[in-house]
């Protein structure tokens, strides 16, 4: 389980848009048609490779219900990436995006990479939100956009990995301060020392490095 970086993600969006299913598809590669409501925040992890570097993705899957909003909000902090999900078969989930985005921007650090995901692309017949609309929204707010299907696993992998790539690029550009864990990025145990390519990646306290 060695990794070069650990990225923390958060998945947000209205209830029932398929956040948990996306996570399940990404981590376990399976789809559960009947899924209990998420109560609180769930947790998943998977190791991926970006430019041959092993990167651990730690993903918080939040509850979408309004009632849990206060709890989930506290998880924005310390996330390097966010997947903002809406359901293409439900217009209202798309309409709520602005609220979610405001919430995310407000509670997260400014560098967080946000990817807009239009889920349930397999249900083309019931589509209510056009792909173009999603694209337009993403453009407008400077997000990356993608339509996925947690059921067929279409684009699921890409959604998570593309986000990771973007974060990785930002690290390379020096946008992220990787020493501040509040950014949701952590250097892997054995990479913490002597990795000169990472700006500022030097004096990590050994106590933290081995956790």
């Amino acid at each position, binding site marked *: 389980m060695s990794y070069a970086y650990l990225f923390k993600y958060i998945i947000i969006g209205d209830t029932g848009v398929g956040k948990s299913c996306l996570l399940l598809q990404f981590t376990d590669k399976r789809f559960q048609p009947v899924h209990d409501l998420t109560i*609180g925040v769930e947790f998943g992890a998977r190791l991926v490779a970006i430019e041959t570097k092993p990167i651990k993705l730690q993903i918080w899957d939040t509850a979408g219900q309004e009632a849990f909003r206060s709890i989930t909000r506290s998880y924005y902090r310390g996330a390097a990436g966010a997947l903002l999900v809406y359901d293409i078969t439900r217009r209202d989930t798309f309409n709520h995006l602005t609220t979610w985005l405001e919430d995310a921007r407000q509670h997260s650090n400014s560098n967080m990479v946000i990817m807009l995901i239009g889920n349930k692309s397999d249900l083309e017949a019931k589509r209510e939100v056009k792909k173009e609309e999603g694209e337009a929204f993403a453009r407008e707010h400077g997000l990356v956009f993608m339509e996925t299907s947690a059921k067929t696993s279409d684009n699921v992998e890409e959604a998570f990995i593309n986000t990771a790539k973007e974060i990785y690029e930002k690290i390379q550009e020096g946008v992220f301060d990787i020493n501040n864990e509040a950014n949701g990025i952590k250097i892997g145990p054995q990479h913490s020392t002597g990795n000169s390519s990472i700006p500022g990646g030097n004096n990590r306290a050994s106590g933290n490095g081995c956790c």
Partner: protein
Amino acid sequence: MSFLEWRRFNFFDINHNADSKKISQIIGNSKITSTSSGNGYLVICDDDGLVHLITRTFQVTTFRAYQSAVLLATQLQYSNFLVTIGIDEPDSNAILKVWDLERRDRQSNPICVRSTKLSKSEKPTTLCATDNRLLMAVGFVDGCIALYKGDLSRDRNSKPKMLKELGQEITGMAFSSVIKNQWYLFVSTASSVQQFNVTSKDSCPMTILDAVGCDFKCSVLVNGPDSHFMIAKEDAIYCYTVDSRGPCYVVGGKKIILQWFRSYLIIVSKEVEKSSNTVTVSTTTKNFDEIESVSITILDIQNKFIVFTVTIREILSVLPEWGSLYILTTGGNLSQLIEKDLQSKLTVLFKKNLYDVAVRMAKCQQYDSQALIDIFRQYGDHLYTKGDHSGAVEQYIKTIGKLEPSYVIKKFLDSQYIESLTTYLHALHKSGNATKDHTTLLFNCYSKLNSVDKLQEFIITKDENIDFDVDVAIQVCRQSSPENALKLAEKHDRHSLYIKILLEDRYEYTAALEYIEKLSTEQSVQTVKQYSNVFMENVPKETVTFLKKLCSTSYTSGNVDLSDSSAQPEDFIYLLLDDSECLVDFLEHFENYLDKWSTSLLNIYIEHCLIVWKNESNQEKRTTIENKIINILQSHDIKTCDYYQVLILAMSFDFKPAIVYIFEHNKQYTKLIHYYLSLSDYSAAIDCCRKYGPTEPMLWILVFNTAMGDEMFPSSMLEEILNEIEKKSLLSAHFTITSLIKSKNVKIGHIRAYLTSLFGAEKKTFEKEKEMVNKYQKDSENIKNTIQKLKNCAIVFQGLRCSACNNQLELPSVHFMCQHSYHQHCFQAFSESDNDCPACTPNNKKIMDVIRTQGQIKDDEALHNQLKQTTDSFSLISEYFGRCLFDDPSTFENQLAKFKLSSPVLLSPKLVVPAVQTPPKLSPILAVRTIKPSTNPFDEDDDDQMRYDDNKNPFKTDYDETKNPFADDM
């Protein structure tokens, strides 16, 4: 609203008053200050300084630990040590004591193995220790933590390490070890959660995990692979790992106690909304008295449901021990919560038709696969009765491998469920549990569903995971769609079946051939052998072409082993036996590899060449074939070519060139001539004689004999034959003439030359011999005269010189009859004996030796043996005579003696004795002649022209076996 989203079940039974009020009696009016459990005890401490140990059978041991009060107690989970903190005297620092519960004193009270006064006067709030007894921490009300390291059961004066002050009272602590030998201390305060790495001796770095905190007893450590430190807040339960936040579970209500039992989270909380009877809602939770009505909820975190909930007044603590949970109230009432066994839990779930939950739970609890499958089956049955057939099949598929497939198949046999059945069967195949019947059924399903595409997909995409009986599948497919059967056969290398389908169902012979061509040699040979008859019947030409290719590979491949694997032309000959021309054509394809042909193959080839030759009317073609055969015969060495076989073939087909060739090749000239003569081809016979006569003269005799018996023999040739016979003296003239006389058609003209030369030669011989006779007569006459002279006349010794020194002879001298004279001194010097002439001695000695050895041979026995063995006893006897072997040995010896006694004549000046002595009977010369070995007394002369010719002797030892016409084999 708090547990709105969690499913509710009742998986626990509650047993009120589990202790029959024993505890409340013991405690009496004291107040319980601290509780703990572990290692078979429930530990209850009160403010009177007493500690009560309760065993499983609720026998209580009470001992006084402190004079004043016990503040905190921790029973180690798996060891017999109890750690307590209490006060002996008011206004002094609290004392930490460690008790060994195994060792008891006379009053059967546990022995205190350590007693240490705490270094701080502040009130300790929390206490925790690790099971290995190496780490212990005490939290204080001012936020200090005293960390004790080293064996805590030993009373050592080691100073505790004081960790960083947190400024707030410590509400919870727990040691956790995620990685081996890495210890962390989770600490919670009212407004923060942090972690200390207490592994190293010197520094204990702190990591702040969150800025929220919890109350007393509202934190718990979940040990296990994903170890979490949980804290309960009013809105939710938050989890922390050693390095970061973990998940959170939203559970409302004001939590009082958080506890962990097996895989359950136990939450004791105030019913804020509901409990109208709650008297006070205290913001400070120091006093347990204030809690009046609370509910206990048990959560299954993994499966996300509430497994038990009950409302109990005044819960003081929840203690897991002896496999169940004990709830202790402030009043000392103990209730037991017993978890239902899995089967009854599952029954509950089944009743509610929550099969998926049941499965999940069963899996969590390591349920065995058989039972799991039973759940799947029940689930399937349930869905089936509900009419959700596809869903049912999905469940049934999970039972594959254990559940008898026919159970499922029977349910779906109705044609309307055929789709579900197909899905099931497909899965059955995928898992490799399908039998032949299942394959058949599946294929039938596909054909019934008319989903050829699916069938094809099944066939084509079949990978290693899907296993089915290919042969059966092909059989089934064959009936419905031969194309699929073909594809299947091709995919699975069932070449023989593939060909069979092609041939028997589709009659595509050429295609079949093409297919075979693609196969490996071994496979194609097998297949072709199997179906060669069919091919020959339908597409003979293509078949032959194909066979040619196939067989030539076996030659070109280099290693021609005679195993079945390679294609041998022999294997296919039987196909073409009826059509010689075709066969010849086929075999000629391999002409280049003639040297690799086997004998039988060659024979067959020649045989069929001959058949073709016989049936061929075109003279030109015949000649070509003739040349071909002869070429083959010539080009083959005797090993591969069975000449006798070929000879028989040639004979039966009257194929002259081959017959002649083989006879010549085998040097069976006699047979060849016989053959010629039987064909009345006399000139050829004569030619043959001319050719081979020099080495085998008997051929001439053969021809001659035949000529004598055969009236058709052209007499013109007789002359040559006779000439040869005469020249080589093959036959005695007498025999020849007798034969000639017998012959009816011999004209004198033809034999005149022969006779003339014969008689001429006879005459010459006669004359020559006559001369010889005369000569010998003269010679013997001369010898007789000499003997006479020696006997009767005087001998004059006229020698003037000494034969030894060649000087003038002087007296005294010695004279010998042989006309040698010596000085006496010379003679004495040279001679070995007095009687022998030194000059003649060596010669005479030789002669004498020869005579002696001849005499030694003489032995009657040997002679008789020899006579028996030899065929020409006459010549043997004559030889014996010639060697004088029959003479009386005594006379011979006498003669020898006499000969020796011929003493020399000694002439001295005084005494001259004329030596008148008996001369030896034989002159030395004569003796030489007579005893010459190997000389036959019947021989006329040494240089006789009529020498014995070895060649004429039929018994000669170096007789050439090959010339023997009776030699049975080469």
